[in-house]
């Protein structure tokens, strides 16, 4: 009796049998344009618009590019201008509704981070419009050797999703995060089942297995202060020597948002648009100004900026670090620079006089 009352009142989770997963994806397609991880050749996967739900890779771990590329595209028109009309803000022109499927907790936390960056005192209306029209369907995962999201405390999502799926083997445990998530469940009444005590046990089990699967621990609590003390550490010089300034780490990072701007003139020579394009603080031109002066000439000051911005500056501005521990920058770096190694070295290394 006790447990039955509990189950009846506790309606914010459902069970989805694995053979009904395709049914869910089809249902999601009716809620908007569906994006999810699709397998590439070579074992990697990429977030893209999916034509057939079966194309979605339900076991994808780390996509090459993060979901930011859908909410904050690599290039975007900000304004239109004409010679005698001046500038006009460009509205967002994406799909009317977007469903982002398959975001792991690190990526959901990264989207929440971008929400902070693009709202507040100066709002980015295009990002916010796209974001308002986007449903987020989370999916759990088991970490590999590049994941350290439990150190960054972004290995769990308590908000930022409409539905969140946890793989229990035979079925998915589906948490309902929002009213929209509940609408999806209602629309798919026949594919979901109520959860029972055994599914709660399995869910706990999975959570424990996942915690135990992390192979790295990165110390982050005292990090801002230690980084400040290590401002002149030799580490930055040696990383500067290794780094190719390719900017890949910024492109693949789900929370990097720096951009450059240029004005593009149409063939008529009288009209055009102002375009934003992803930029990277690692590139030589990032802080170069007119007359050729460069505030960040040395590669070491640029790579240092990447760490200091994520671990200190972002905390000052928004209250938490911006690295969510997804490991993408480690996978992407041609110089084999690893954020895990760098942060651990910062803690372990003694100051050399």
């Amino acid at each position, binding site marked *: 009796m006790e447990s039955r009352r509990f189950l009846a009142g506790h309606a914010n989770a459902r069970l989805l049998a694995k053979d009904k997963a395709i049914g869910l994806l089809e249902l999601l397609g009716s809620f908007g344009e569906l994006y999810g991880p699709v397998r590439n050749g070579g074992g990697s996967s990429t977030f893209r618009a999916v034509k057939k739900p079966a194309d979605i890779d339900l076991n994808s771990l780390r996509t090459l590019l993060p979901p930011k590329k859908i909410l904050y595209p690599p290039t975007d028109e900000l*304004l239109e*201008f*004409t010679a005698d009309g001046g500038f006009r803000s460009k509205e967002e022109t994406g799909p009317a509704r977007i469903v982002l499927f398959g975001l792991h907790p690190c990526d959901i936390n990264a989207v929440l981070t971008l929400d902070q960056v*693009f709202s507040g005192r100066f709002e980015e209306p295009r990002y*916010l419009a796209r974001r308002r029209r*986007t449903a987020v369907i989370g999916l759990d995962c088991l970490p590999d050797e590049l994941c350290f999201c439990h150190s960054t405390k972004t290995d769990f999502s308590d908000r930022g999703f409409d539905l969140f799926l946890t793989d229990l083997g035979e079925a998915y445990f589906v948490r309902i995060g929002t009213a929209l998530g509940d609408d999806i469940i209602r629309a798919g009444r026949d594919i979901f089942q109520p959860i029972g005590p055994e599914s709660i046990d399995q869910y706990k089990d999975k959570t424990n297995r996942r915690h135990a699967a992390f192979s790295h621990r990165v110390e982050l609590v005292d990090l801002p202060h230690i980084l400040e003390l290590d401002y002149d550490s030799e580490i930055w010089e040696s990383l500067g020597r290794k780094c190719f300034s390719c900017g890949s780490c910024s492109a693949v990072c789900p929370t990097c948002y720096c951009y450059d701007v*240029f004005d593009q003139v149409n063939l008529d020579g009288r009209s055009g648009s102002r375009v934003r394009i992803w930029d990277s603080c690692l590139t030589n031109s990032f802080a170069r100004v007119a007359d050729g002066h460069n505030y960040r000439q040395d590669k070491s000051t640029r790579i240092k900026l990447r760490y200091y*911005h994520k671990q*200190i*500056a972002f905390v000052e501005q928004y209250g938490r670090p911006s690295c969510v521990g997804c490991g993408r920058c480690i996978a992407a770096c041609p110089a084999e620079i690893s954020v895990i190694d760098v942060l651990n070295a910062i803690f372990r290394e003694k100051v050399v006089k």
Partner: protein
Amino acid sequence: MNGVPVATKPDPLQPNRAHVIRVQRLPLEINLFQLRFEDEELNLSFDFKPGQFLMLSVIGVGEAPFAIVSSPSRRGLIEIAVRQSGRVTTALHNLKENALIGIRGPYGNGYPIERMRRSDVLLLSEGPWFGALRSLRWYILDNRKDFGQVTLVATADDAKDLPFGDELSWLGDREDITCRVCRPAARDAEGQDHMARLIAGLRQTKFVAQGTYAVLAGEPAHFPPLWDYLLERGVSKDKILFSLQRKMRCGIGKCGHCSIGYKYTCLDGPVFSYWDAQNLPEVI
């Protein structure tokens, strides 16, 4: 989708229509541009603090940040002084009077004029940076009774070769401001002599350090001897102020280009104090 932020304000990147009203040639190939919004209401409501900057767009070319050199105490025309250096500044120099441009802002923290009220103020400038203190100087002179002793020390080979240098001669005639112009040794690339002269000039003025604000304009790398002197005299660390420049693409804390240490120059600056500089790597 609960809790997703909603856009409630106009696009902060959208420039307002404005016109170049007058262009005046100043020394050192700097042009003074007088600007005016098309919307009369905007001209009246455009409120800013000395030390703030705006983002100016030349249509079809691009956008760049410029300090406002006019004073909020004189509404109507906004003035900027621009040195030709790259794409936008060259296109700006080529614009005819009445040309349509875009302006958004004002941005940045500006000088803390509320806090500075009733205090003595030192205005210290190195050579061509004299113009950088123009907005603050005019603001103080237009609200003269709100401030204590005002002392201006500038270095210059010849005042008339500086942008706004002509203002130095009539400033010298005013009773309510102490004004010293010091000539540095020729060819002083490191600025050592500029700083030495500023310090010597300051010594002659017998200023009171207690509670005084010292506002510095110059090449930041040259500042340390002047900082040391001011600190020895007892000017407090949070009252030694200066403005910094960095590359800027947005002016509103989104593009990331203007970072200094742990701060964005466009949001937390461009005005910083000596105390900020002590707690912030990369200032000089």
